[in-house]
Structures are given as C-alpha cells and as structure tokens.
C-alpha cells in the first residue's frame, strides 16, 4: 500500500524525515519497499485573493484583476472567465517557474502591465485538461506557497503489509503504530457522536447474521456530482487511487484514511425502501460495477434492495445502483463483513478489490460508525458548488455476529523463555498498553495477566502473538545474539548426500556437466520417452509446462539440442532429479529419484590424435563406473528389452545381479541405456548420434556399499596367453567369458577381451574374439605343459559350447 507521509503527519506528530519514518516502520514489521519523493513541478506560485476584476480596456476577453498576496496588491491580466472578486487563486509571481521551464516575467498585455499570472490546473501541471483558473478554498492563508498548501511536496512510502495485518492498510492504522512507539497521541478527525434520533424509513434486514456483523446506512440528499477538490484528487492520486468524482472519491478517501470500505448507492435507484443482507440463491446473478455479469453461489453474501441484488457484499457494488453524473441522493453503506466469506467469494470469482482485500484481512468492527459519519460529513462538504446537501440525522443500524473481544492469558516469564531475553514485566506491560492492549492491573506474583486484544487486531489470538507484540515494540535488536550452538547429529542424511556427491563428481571428472531442468514438461516433449498417461497439473502456466516429467530425458534432450544449435561440437551432461508416474487408482503419483546422462558429439580432442565421437562404449563405461562406485559391483547389460525411443541394436536394460545369487531372476532393474533411436533423434532434430542412460538413484544411494572384504592377491608373476577364437556372430562376449569362468579352472586368474574382428578372413556369419588369459598358481611358477593344458581346456569348452575354432 502507498502511504503519504503528509497524510500520516496529520494523525501523529512525527519529528523525523521520511527516511526515518520508513526505518521505524520497517523495524515495527511494516516493510517499506521504496520511498518516492513527490516534488511540485512549479515554484513561485502563491495563494492570493482577487479584490476586484474589471474588463481589460483593450481586449474583450481579458480582465484586469487587482490581487492581494497578503503582502502587496498586484495588477494581473487574466483571460479566465471564472476570475472574479473574492476568489482565492493561484498566483504565479514574477520569477515563478512553471512546468515546461516557463518563467513568469512582468509583461505588458495590450497596454496593461501584468505582475504575474493567475494559473489553471493545466498550467501548473496538475491535470491534463482544465477550465478556467484554479479556485482555492477561502480558508487558505494569503501568500502561502500553493505547492505547500496543496501538499504537492510529499514522500510516498510503498509498503507491503503482511497478510495478517489488515489494520495497516490505512493511514490512521499506520499512524497508530507510530504513535504507539513514539509515545505520541493519535489524532483522529472529529466526527461527532451520539445516537441517531430515529430510524430511516428504509427497512434493514440482516438475514445472514453470521456473515454481516454490523450494517449502518446513512442518507445524504441534495448532493451534486463534481470533481473533488484539488487537494483530495492529488492525495488520492499520490496513494494510487484514480479520482472519479466527489462522491466516489470521498468513499475512497475514507477507505485510505481509516481502512473501512464504504459503498455509496444512488438512493433513487434503490427500490422498495428496503435493504436486505442475505446469501445468494441458486440460480442468481448480478452485474458488478466493472460491467461483468457474475453467477453467484449460496456462499456469496449480497446486499439487496426490495427487489434485487445491488452489491456483492464487501467485494464490489452493483452496476444497477451506481453513482452517476445526475445522482443527488446517496445511501451510504458502512458495514462489517466476516472475512472468510468475503475471501471465498473474492477468490472464487477472481475478483479482488480494495474492499475485499481489507475485509478478508479483518476490518476493525469499531470503525463502522466512525467511518460512516466521517464520509457523510465529507460528502456534504465537497458537494458541487451551488448545492446545499443535507445529512439525514437518522440512520439504519443493525448488528449480526461480530467477533467477541479476545482475552488472552499471558505470563511475562513465558516471553523471556521463548525469546531468550530478560524483559521485566513492567516493560512488557508498557509495550502491550502502548499498542492498544488492555491489561488487568493486578501484578502479583505467579498469576497470569488477562490481556484484552484491541478491536483492530483480529490476528492476535494467543500468547505467542502477544510475545511477538512485546518483541516488536521493544525491538528485535534488543534480543541477544549469543554464539551459535552446535549439537551432534546422526548425519545419516549427510552420508547419503556424500554418496551422491561422489557419483556427481565421477561423472563430472568424465566430462559431464550437471544440468538442471524444470519438473514440468509438455505432453508432446514427454510422449516420445513415455507413452503412458502423465501426471497433469490442474492449473499449468502453459501447455509447455503442463505435466510432471516421468523421465529426466526430455529435459536433457532439449539441453543437447540447445547446445548443438549454439555451435557446440558435443554435449555431455547429467541430471539428478525427481520423476513422477501416475499411481494406481486412489493413490498418489509415484515419486522417485533418478540420475540420467547424455553423451553427444565429440569429447574434447587433442592435436596428436584423431577426433572421435562418443559411442556406446563411452556410455557403458560411465554407467558401469557409476554403479561400481555406488554399490561396488558392475551392472549387467541385457539387450532386447529396451523402450522404443532407444536404438534396438545399441541399447540395453541395465540391472544389478544379486550379489549372492548371481545373474538371473533376482536382478534388480536399475534403468536403461543406449543410443537414441534414429527416428526419435530425427524427431527431436538431433543430427549427431545421442547416447543416453537413466537409472533409479534409490538402489545406488539408499544403502551404503558393504565394506570391502580384502582378498589377498597372488604375488607369483602371471603368464599371459592370448588366443583368438572364431565364433558365430550372435555369440555374446559375456556368454563366452561366463563359460570360461564356469570351468572353474583355478589357474585362470582373469580373462579379458583384447580384440574383436569381423572380416573376410574369418568368413561370413562369424567373428573373431581375441581372449587374453592370465594364468598363475598361488605357490609356484607354471610349467609350459600346465599352461598349454589350460588353454586347451578353454578351447575345447568354447568349441563345444559355441562351435568356436582357433583362428
């Protein structure tokens, strides 16, 4: 909310500049986001009175006025029709500067000397259009600077009151806070008091007493619609309210002044001499002031006349009873509505107004009558010239349920226990009292105080709230700041995080950047990777961000495309994040954590060798290393079971064999990896081959790898024997190695593949597999015969199992 410092100063004596006021408010919990200095765009213009205005001897449309500045009487030539004797005017003296860098000089106009200029609003930059010269109130003292009397020099504080403090949405409310901490009285305009002699001839009926706590209606007759006085328009504009006309402006002015929303109905357009406050029926609709037709529901509260709804209570008035240019009689509503209902209606209709904003935060129920009297007086005061309005001394006033005054049991010792302070009870009592809380006087020992909450603070409901009030009043800077205390913790979460950091570090050391993608994707970006129905947002920002990702791959693919498009030779990255899959009926979506990686294009090359592109084995190495670091074992790659977005010949399911049972039925699926299917890559406009893998992170992180059980290694030197066997093309290398392992030959320490060759020399349908056997015995050097025997056993087995021949 925008606050005018000039306005605040009318309600509390503030012996400080705007900067200090802003600081004080921030310290009190009303954050001041910005301070804007409003400065008049003119100088040298004073209040003066026209003593006499006579026709210019040489010009029909000009007058020569004798004008009293309070210090001297000057002769001024003026062309405005409304220049007349007795009028208070804005006089630009010689030397005055007006907007547009225009300097006033003594000049001769058709032979008559003019010692200045009588100004219009437009000439002073106060409005874009104006008719005639400014007419200032008679009460203004002559000789004063116009900029000062109109309050054109001001500071505007842009505040952001927290959602609990509806009372800070007005100038008087904020002034009350300042008055409390400064020990100053709060000055409120006097509106008179007393009960109305009798009731208006308008029936008032509250059918929804739980929603409407108080309703006061007043009638002002004989009004005339006109622009508001200049100062009021300037003030409203300064706090961000667009001036409309005197009647509407007064309700807005009182709203900004005290925080009580008001509504002015055109009395003649109310029918049936009756006001009914009731809930909407079904079906029912009404057109609000903004011209929108609103379909209502039974939780909406309405203000109705004898026939129809005339306002959506607390939210917006109806078009049918709007103030118009010919309005003369006004029915002025001031009411207290229950916050939750106003909020529900406002939210359901997406209709926010200054009024609903305040009602849903809780308006001070004690304001209803004050604001009604204040607005009625202002309406009568600022009616169009030539009218003589009358405020009907009678009113209608009915009550429903208003919140009861809250009384809270409060122990000053509790304050100190919560805050870690030593505020004595006297200090605490002063704090609460200054802030408007009533405390009972007995201050004897252990008994808690009963503290009664002021009507404007519906947010204060329990002792913790009072503790905050005490702290706020005394100042948070008065709470000590002891050294930070450390405690011991199990750090189980940190241990898991450390394992994840190890995996991230591994991938980074292999050249992969960590990517971060939004959790939301479009259906079309997700569907190539997962055809199942995704979890959708009810209120997405747009179609591009409408469903939850069920895989990390769409994001990484977009990152690859982005980087290639921007001239990168390749891109290697990984992402760690949550994915979501629709659960079975009646269950929440399944949420799991994944790690995905992508390799595309060329790794960094070197001048000494040929540049090469990432291939399947780069991906496999990364995945194997990742899993090995995580759980101490290398995963199993199984082809033939991969989804459609992967190249069927260049992809695999990745799983973890059971440590005890070996490869088989008990494999734990981790994910999948391989080359993107050429068709998928094409659809994503990725020209270079792309290799991707995505694994569940849970199995890799949730259990720490079992501690390593060291096995002594043999120190006898090993013998290496290479043999190349020719086997049918479909033979899997893993099966060949497994067959050799299955022989359980103790002398074979390890078998590795050193070569793969396909070509004419090995014949069609076959390939050569180069195997390197490492042989050794624990206790002796092997003899040539032993070595040959082992190699022969291997060869015989491979021939029997795979039809292998020695190359």
């Amino acid at each position, binding site marked *: 909310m925008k606050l005018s410092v000039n306005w605040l100063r009318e309600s509390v004596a503030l012996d400080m500049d705007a900067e200090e006021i802003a600081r004080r408010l921030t310290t009190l919990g009303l954050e001041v986001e910005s301070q804007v200095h409003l400065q008049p765009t003119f100088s040298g213009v004073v209040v003066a009175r026209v003593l006499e205005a006579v026709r210019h001897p040489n010009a029909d449309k000009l007058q020569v006025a004798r004008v009293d500045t309070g210090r001297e009487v000057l002769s001024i030539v003026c062309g405005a029709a409304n220049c007349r004797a007795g009028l208070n005017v804005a006089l630009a003296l010689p030397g005055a500067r007006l907007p547009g860098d225009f300097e006033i000089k003594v000049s001769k106009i058709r032979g008559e000397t003019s010692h200045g200029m009588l100004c219009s609003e437009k000439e002073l930059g106060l409005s874009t259009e104006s008719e005639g010269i400014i007419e200032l109130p008679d009460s203004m003292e002559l000789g004063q600077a116009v900029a000062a009397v109109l309050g054109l020099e001001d500071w505007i504080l842009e505040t952001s009151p927290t959602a609990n403090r509806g009372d800070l949405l007005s100038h008087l409310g904020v002034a009350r806070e300042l008055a409390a901490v400064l020990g100053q009285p709060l000055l409120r305009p006097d509106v008179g008091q007393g009960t109305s002699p009798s009731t208006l001839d308008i029936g008032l009926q509250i059918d929804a007493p739980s929603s409407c706590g108080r309703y006061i209606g007043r009638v002002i007759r004989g009004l005339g619609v006109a622009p508001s006085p200049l100062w009021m328009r300037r003030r409203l504009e300064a706090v961000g309210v667009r001036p409309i006309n005197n009647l509407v402006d007064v309700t807005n002015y009182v709203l900004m002044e005290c925080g009580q929303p008001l509504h002015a109905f055109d009395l003649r357009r109310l029918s049936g001499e009756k006001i009914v406050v009731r809930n909407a029926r079904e079906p029912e609709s009404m057109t609000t002031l903004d011209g929108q037709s609103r379909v209502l529901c039974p939780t909406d509260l309405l203000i109705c006349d004898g026939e129809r709804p005339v306002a959506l209570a607390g939210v917006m008035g109806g078009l049918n009873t709007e103030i118009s240019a010919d309005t003369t009689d006004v029915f002025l509503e001031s009411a207290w509505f229950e916050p939750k209902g106003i909020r529900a209606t406002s939210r359901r209709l997406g209709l926010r107004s200054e009024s609903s904003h305040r009602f849903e935060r809780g308006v001070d129920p004690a304001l209803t009558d004050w604001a009604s009297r204040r607005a009625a007086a202002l309406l009568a005061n600022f009616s169009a010239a030539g009218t003589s309005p009358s405020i009907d001394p009678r009113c209608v006033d009915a009550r429903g349920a208003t919140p009861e005054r809250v009384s809270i049991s409060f122990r000053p010792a509790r304050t100190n226990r919560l805050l*870690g302070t030593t505020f004595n009870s006297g200090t605490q009592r002063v704090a609460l009292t200054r802030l408007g809380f009533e405390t009972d006087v007995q201050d004897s020992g252990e008994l808690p105080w009963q503290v009664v909450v002021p009507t404007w603070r519906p947010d204060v409901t329990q002792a913790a709230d009072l503790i905050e009030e005490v*702290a706020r009043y005394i100042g948070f800077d008065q709470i000590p700041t002891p050294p930070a205390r450390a*405690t011991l913790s199990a750090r189980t*979460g940190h241990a898991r995080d450390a394992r994840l950091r190890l995996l991230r570090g591994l991938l980074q050391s292999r050249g992969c950047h960590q990517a971060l*993608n939004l959790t939301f994707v479009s259906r079309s970006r997700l569907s190539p990777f997962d055809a199942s129905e995704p979890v959708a947002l*009810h209120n*997405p920002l747009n179609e591009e961000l409408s469903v939850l990702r069920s895989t990390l791959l769409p994001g990484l693919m977009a990152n690859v495309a982005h980087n290639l498009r921007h001239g990168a030779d390749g891109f290697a990255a990984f992402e760690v994040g949550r994915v979501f899959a629709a659960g079975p009926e009646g269950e929440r979506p399944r949420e799991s954590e994944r790690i995905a990686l992508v390799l595309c294009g060329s790794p960094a090359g070197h001048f000494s060798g040929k540049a090469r592109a990432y291939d399947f084995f780069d991906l496999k190495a990364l995945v194997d290393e990742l899993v090995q670091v995580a759980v101490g074992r290398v995963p199993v790659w199984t082809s033939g079971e991969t989804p459609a977005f992967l190249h069927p010949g260049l992809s695999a399911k990745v799983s973890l064999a059971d440590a005890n049972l070996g490869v088989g039925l008990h494999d734990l699926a981790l994910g999948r990896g391989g080359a993107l299917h050429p068709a998928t890559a094409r659809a994503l406009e990725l020209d270079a081959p792309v290799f991707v893998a995505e694994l569940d992170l849970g199995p890799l992180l949730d259990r720490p790898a079992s501690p390593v059980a060291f096995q002594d290694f043999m120190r006898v030197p090993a013998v290496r024997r290479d043999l190349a066997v020719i086997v049918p093309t479909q033979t899997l290398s893993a099966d060949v190695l497994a067959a050799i392992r299955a022989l359980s030959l103790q002398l074979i320490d390890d078998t590795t593949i050193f070569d793969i060759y396909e070509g004419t020399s090995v014949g069609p349908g076959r390939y050569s597999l180069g195997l390197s056997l490492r042989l050794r015995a624990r206790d002796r050097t092997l003899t040539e015969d032993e070595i040959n025997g082992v190699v022969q056993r291997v060869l015989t087995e491979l021939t029997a199992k795979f039809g292998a021949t020695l190359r």
Partner: protein
Amino acid sequence: MSDALAELQRQLADIEREARSTLHSIARESELVPIRAGVLGKKGVLSPLLAALGKLDGSARPAAGALINVTKLALEVLFEEARLRLVQQAIETRVATERVDVTLPGRRSEIGATHPVQQVMDDLVDLLGQFGFDLTDGPEVETEDYNFNLLNMPASHPARDMQDTFYLQNGLVAGLLMRTQTSPVQVRTMLSQKPPVRIIAPGKVFRCDADATHSPVFHQIEGLWIDTDVTMADLKGTLTHFLRTLYGDDRPVRFRPSFFPFTEPSVEVDVWTGTRWMEVLGAGMVHPNVLRNVGYDPEEVQGFAFGLGVDRLAMIRYGITDIRYLWENDARFLRQFVAGGAV
C-alpha cells in the same frame, strides 16, 4: 716362457685388442649383449682357450690359466666401462634431442561443472551440517494438509495468497499439489520423531507466479530446531553466524518483524550489501499451533525454523543476471563453474 704360453699371450692380446676396437665402434647398449657373448660367453672366443688348458703341460697350466683369467677380468672391466659409457651416452642423447613445446595443450578431457545452484546448496548443507542440522527430505507432490493446513495456513487465511499453488489434476487423489515450500518436511519430520529435532531440508519448490525474475520451479533450504530451550536468541545467534560465514564476517545482519503463518514471532533477515539491505531469509519461532498439530506440547518444547531461496543466492553470489541461465544448461554457462566455490 714356452712357446705355447707366448702363443696364448699373443692370442689373448689379439682378443683384447679386437674387443677394445669393437666396443669403441658400437653406439647402443643393446649391441653390447651379442658382442659380450661372442667374447665372454659359453661360445665366446675365450672358451676354446680355456678348453685348451687341459692339453698343456701340468707345469704350464697354472700360468696359462692365470693369463686367461687376467685377460677375462680385463675384458669384463672393458665391457662394464663400455656399458656405462653407452648408458650415459644414451641418456645424454635423449636429453639433448628430446624436446616438446610445453605450451601445447595437454591431452585433456572437459571437466564437467557442478551446477551453480547445486554448489550453493552443497555449501549451505555443509555449513548447516556443521551445526548439527541433519539432512532430510520429503516429497515434491504434497497434500493440502502437509503443505498448508498443518502449517497453520487454512484455505480461509489470506496468507495462502503469498504462495500461488500448482494443483494436480483432480483425478485420483483430491487436493494434491506441488509443494510451495520445503516447510512440509518440518511437519513430516516432527510427526515421525520425538524432540529434539534438528534438521535441514533442501529441495525443489513450485509456485505458479513465474515471470522474468521468477521460475515456476526453484530451490529452498529449510531448517528446523526444536528442543526444550531453543530461543529466539538462538535463532539470531545461529542465523547471524550462518549469514556471516556466507556473506562475510563484517556484514551487518538485520532481523525485522514479519509474518509467516507457521512461526510466531516471525522475522525476515536482511544482510547489508554496502548500499542497501538485501532480504535473504525468513525465519521465526515455530508457531504453537504447528507444534500442537504434530503432537508436540508447546509448553514443553520450542524452537525455530528458517527457510531461504537458493537460486537467488546463487545468482547474487555469481553475479548471474538472468534467471533463464539457470535452466538453459548452456555449456558456455556451466563451464564457468568448473572451479567450484566453497564458502
């Protein structure tokens, strides 16, 4: 001296001379092995002379043997000298000829970077971990209860407007939403364990108020400390130490009253940038209603909670000007964060 001995002496002299000249002519250590074998080996030129010893008179034999041994020793010395010379020569040659332009690039691969948001997150987790806050997390899809109601934020409260919420389509389970804050982890933790509780919960949060400076997805880290004696002074002490470690020891830190439904009193904490106060985190004493909601007795236990936005912190720390960089994953952006940055 017999003729035979003279003849032997002459032969040995020839062999030694021959060996000397051969060794003189070779350039590599590897050539030494066959030459040595040709002289000193089993089939070398000395072997027949040794074999011939048996044919000599018994009286001449010791002298002949001695002659051969002397020569053999001399030859071995010669060969060893030659070997040392050749090794030395080889080293000198290598050192004299091998040269590289040391300014040429190494055979390196690209180093992947930790995402800047992750770096800041890691630092915060480490720093808070040192105090004894244990790391924990919770689901990103939440219920109204955990995200709002149990945190003292009923739907009827205007505080709900502080956080525009993404709801899931009302298909299978009603009222599911993307968590708007990491605070539901507080509730989940307190519901599952007895006090004392001291945790941090980093993670993604979601709000549908995206614009040029906000992403609909961003990162928060939440802290919670509940015990019998944790006071607002502890809040100030802990967060002041935390922020000074993060921003610099001399930075003024300001605590000002604010409002969060789940804390009372609530504070916002600002750090002085040198020209203005910058809001960096929100905190407060956990609201008694929240404590009651999780079955704690607010007369028995009390404590504080805090939360801060990680993305903004990363942008400030690294001088990142546009939030889009954080989500674009452009290698030209990421590469700049390879060096990492501990606090």
